[in-house]
């Protein structure tokens, strides 16, 4: 039996301290927490920076480090610093050093880096080791070298290697969400299908229970499956909440692809042990012939400046599409005549169809709308210049020539907001490896006094 305690779905998201204390009292063999995801968009991988505030991450991480010391077991974080890029790993390592210096705790840290050198990726592509997933994105040497960060998603094998160093804490770069949880039960001979399925159920913390906000859960792995127990006193796991969790953020609710194989939960059985705990058996792990890790990459996609104007005058609200298309045409023509360089202008109508665009068949306006001008250009200077050309149109453009010049509401001065560099995800591929450690870098460091 292997017990893994999961404090919450992600570091920085918050958790119930009493639930974490209950978890420590349950004597886990490992504490595992996810440090990120692609879900907040390409900026974080593109820049290698954290989505969550440093202060809140430090507070939560310090609490979890205390829990680790009390439990006397290893602590593993995957996808550190939101993206798991090398800089993001260093960022969390720096926070860890700071905490250790403050608490006086001496710790051995294993650092697993997932960042990929673009030159090596170009060679891997040429050698036929990089293959696309669906939907297929174009890939080339130029694209790979244009990425600001490429990471490979580590699986259970790399986390096991990190644990084998005897480290107190493993700070891992990009990993699959599940690998940080499945690694130890797999290493200790628990049921492989149960290990991966339990890890998938556990990776979002208490999201698979009736009280997602409580955060902390315990998964007990054995030689047939696993048992999920919420650590929050008012949280319950039921066969419904647990089985329904396979739907969440999964394109296929029965299959989950991981390095070295896939999980199939088609035959899984969910049994309520009592009103709070569920036992799951019958999940199957299907090993693959080849060892493949998924790649993620982000590259620069230009620079943006956005502007916002609010329109309250009923005739303009009623004719907002015509107003926007007239501005779009005139502003684009004027900017093309004076600005040297590539740009795109989009006017998005907030309060009409800004969320869904052309897919919205029920779009209608209320008493006011906001118009967001979005300029995307090859440099920030061009984006800013075009947005400044847009400014007088947004402020004063009249629907007809035979009317007094209108003035609309700018909420800010200036109304232009520079968004800086923007990034895009550009890899949806897998990398084949002869040895699971080939694409990963494992080191150990001592921190504290």
């Amino acid at each position, binding site marked *: 039996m292997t017990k893994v305690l999961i404090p919450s779905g992600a570091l920085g998201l918050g958790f119930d301290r009493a639930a974490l204390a209950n978890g420590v009292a349950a004597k886990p063999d490992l504490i595992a927490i996810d440090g990120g995801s692609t879900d907040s968009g390409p900026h974080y991988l593109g820049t290698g920076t954290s989505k969550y505030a440093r202060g809140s991450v430090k507070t939560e991480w310090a609490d979890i480090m205390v829990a680790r010391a009390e439990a006397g077991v290893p602590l593993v974080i995957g996808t550190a610093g939101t993206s798991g890029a090398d800089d993001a790993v260093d960022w969390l390592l720096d926070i860890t050093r700071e905490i250790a210096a403050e608490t006086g705790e001496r710790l051995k840290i294993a650092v697993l880096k997932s960042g990929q050198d673009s030159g090596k990726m170009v060679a891997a592509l040429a050698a036929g080791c990089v293959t696309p997933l*669906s939907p297929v994105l174009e890939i080339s040497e130029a694209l790979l070298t244009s990425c600001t960060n490429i990471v490979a998603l580590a699986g259970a094998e790399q986390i096991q290697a990190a644990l084998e160093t005897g480290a107190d804490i493993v700070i891992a770069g990009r990993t699959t969400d599940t690998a940080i949880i499945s690694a130890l039960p797999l290493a200790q001979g628990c049921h492989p299908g149960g290990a991966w399925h339990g890890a998938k159920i556990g990776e979002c913390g208490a999201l698979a229970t009736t009280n997602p906000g409580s955060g902390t859960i315990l998964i007990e792995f054995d030689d047939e499956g696993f048992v999920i127990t919420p650590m929050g006193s008012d949280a319950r796991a039921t066969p419904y909440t647990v089985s329904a969790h396979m739907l969440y953020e999964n394109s296929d609710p029965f299959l989950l692809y991981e390095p070295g194989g896939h999980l199939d939960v088609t035959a899984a059985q969910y049994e309520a042990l009592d009103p709070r705990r569920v036992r799951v058996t019958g999940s199957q792990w299907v090993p693959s012939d080849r060892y493949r890790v998924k790649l993620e990459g982000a590259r620069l996609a230009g620079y943006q400046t956005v502007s916002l104007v609010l329109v309250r005058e009923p005739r303009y609200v009623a004719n907002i599409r015509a107003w926007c298309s007239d501005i779009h045409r005139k502003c684009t023509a004027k900017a093309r005549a004076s600005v040297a360089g590539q740009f795109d202008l989009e006017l998005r109508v907030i309060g009409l169809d800004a969320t869904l665009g052309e897919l919205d068949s029920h779009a209608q306006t209320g008493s006011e709308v906001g118009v967001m001008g979005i300029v995307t250009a090859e440099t920030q200077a061009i984006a800013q210049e075009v947005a400044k050309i847009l400014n007088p149109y947004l402020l004063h453009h009249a629907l007809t020539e035979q009317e007094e010049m209108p003035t609309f509401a700018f909420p800010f001065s200036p109304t232009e907001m520079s968004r800086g560099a923007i990034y895009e995800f550009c890899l949806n591929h897998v990398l084949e490896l002869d040895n699971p450690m080939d694409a990963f870098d494992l080191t150990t460091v001592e921190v504290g006094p």
Partner: protein
Amino acid sequence: MTKLADIVTKVRSKNAGPFWLTIDIFCGSSDVFRRVCGGVSSEIVANAMGADLSDLKRFEIADLNVVKFSLPRPHIQGTALDRDMHGASFASILAEMEIGAP
């Protein structure tokens, strides 16, 4: 006419990675589940989402009374044309769809 949202418990959408969108229709009962299975065709969903039918995955999960659709995102998450970073708003396209009488 009846909208899907009027008869089901919840329609939820979310990213499944940066390139896929997944939409879960929680029907709440086996009767509603059967009505949704029969009344919400893959063709209608592909059309409403502006997707190719061949790219759409459909799952009818009787144990949960859930009908699930997955499709490539209308625009890749976070690109200049993407309007919804987490993809949760796409659910309303199906929620507001009309469903025929049982």
